[in-house]
């Protein structure tokens, strides 16, 4: 693809802190290379703001390789921008045309309060994992991996679910701000493997309870989460979570 430079208008959500009401502010950026990543474009803008003595825009990022789940941003009405199966850090400026206006918003959900500008607090996800997204293993010698046969299809499905990077795009995309795709990926990942079996009932129950406690909405199977997921986590995982939950509630001892 031919390289080109572009001038853009950015409409960015600015919010000083949690309590601040916040609002949109317009910025002009010039000579942005089509080879740049979206975050590099924001870096250019921030350098410009710092030079002008203004407060730079706060946004989350870490690996910039599309694997850590730190970057977020709701770009032109879609989590992680318009490219399919892509994170914001891997969105490149060739996705935009010269003269375009780009609207950048933070994830919007009651359970993801804005910390500053485009940064939201996603620690609710950590607490959901703490509620059951683990397996308990006694210490001692490592068991030989081949002593535990695992069906290839189940292993592949578990791996596909484990692809979730916990970025929160599913919550941002969902009209109910539900964390069901995230939660179902974590539950499916472990429920499909023999190592996850002993705790499967308490896991699904505790993790759903924690999700509700954190203030996420309920799933209505619209499929927006799946469409927005940078790791293409299947919505079938949500149905599997429902099955796990129903089965756990029917077979509970008390």
């Amino acid at each position: 693809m031919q390289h080109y430079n572009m001038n853009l208008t950015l409409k960015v959500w600015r919010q000083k802190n949690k309590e601040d009401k916040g609002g949109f502010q317009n910025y002009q950026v010039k000579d942005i290379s089509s080879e740049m990543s979206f975050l590099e474009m924001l870096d250019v803008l921030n350098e410009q703001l710092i030079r002008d003595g203004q407060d730079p825009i706060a946004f989350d990022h870490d690996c910039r390789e599309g694997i850590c789940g730190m970057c977020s941003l709701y770009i032109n009405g879609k989590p992680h921008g318009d490219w399919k199966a892509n994170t914001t850090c891997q969105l490149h400026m060739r996705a935009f045309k010269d003269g375009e206006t780009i609207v950048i918003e933070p994830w919007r959900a009651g359970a993801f309060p804005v910390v500053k500008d485009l940064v939201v607090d996603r620690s609710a996800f950590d607490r959901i994992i703490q509620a059951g997204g683990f397996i308990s293993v006694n210490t001692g010698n490592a068991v030989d991996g081949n002593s535990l046969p695992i069906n290839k299809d189940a292993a592949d499905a578990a791996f596909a679910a484990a692809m979730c990077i916990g970025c929160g795009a599913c919550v941002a995309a969902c009209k109910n701000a539900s964390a069901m795709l995230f939660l179902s990926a974590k539950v499916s990942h472990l429920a499909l493997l023999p190592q996850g079996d002993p705790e499967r009932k308490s896991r699904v129950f505790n993790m759903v309870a924690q999700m509700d406690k954190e203030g996420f909405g309920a799933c209505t199977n619209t499929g927006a989460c799946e469409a927005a997921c940078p790791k293409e986590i299947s919505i079938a995982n949500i149905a599997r979570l429902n099955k796990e939950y129903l089965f756990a509630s029917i077979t509970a001892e008390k």
Partner: protein
Amino acid sequence: MTWKQVFTSSVGKKLVMGFTGIFLILFLIVHVGLNACIWANDGGEMFNKGAHFMGANWVPRILEIGLFAGLLLHIIQGLLLVFYNRSKRTVGYAINYGNRGSKWYSRSMGLLGTIILLFLILHLANFWLPNRSHQGFLLGEEINLYTTMKDVFSNILVVIVYVFGCISLGYHLAHGFQSAFKTLGIHNKRWHKSISAVGLAFSIIVPLLFAMMPLSFYFGWIN
């Protein structure tokens, strides 16, 4: 993990919606099947026989209580879920994801359901209430429901409202049918594919048949 904890959780609430939804889908099959007797072209004889079986027999009348219970549960839980889910995003987006991420009717189940509820109130006031009150709400003598249908559907406004109600039902089912099975845990691709296909066919055929009933009376397609 008490039953109370289960049914007050977000997944438990959805299970209630799924179970009652499938129950109501089964009811629709009975309803559309019996009402299709109007097309027997026998002046409503067969239809009234069917209506008589449903209205003057203890077994369907007891099941009717179950139907209303399921219906109320679906309506109340559905409305509560709509408000619960709405409250989870306090600050909205400037630009919405909209139709790029999901179908409009899958996001509008609350609205479609409310339209169906309003239609249902009119529908019950047109047929169920006059008939049951004539019966003294027990097993008394029924009114002639075929001629009642003829009367009610001679009004073009009522016919339009009914057709609109059926369209809403169609879209409600287009999402609800397959979603209910997902909620109950059907995750296998092969089952999901066939359920989605059956659901789509059901959501077109059944509301279409229902919509044909007022139209058939209004345009005199039946004797």
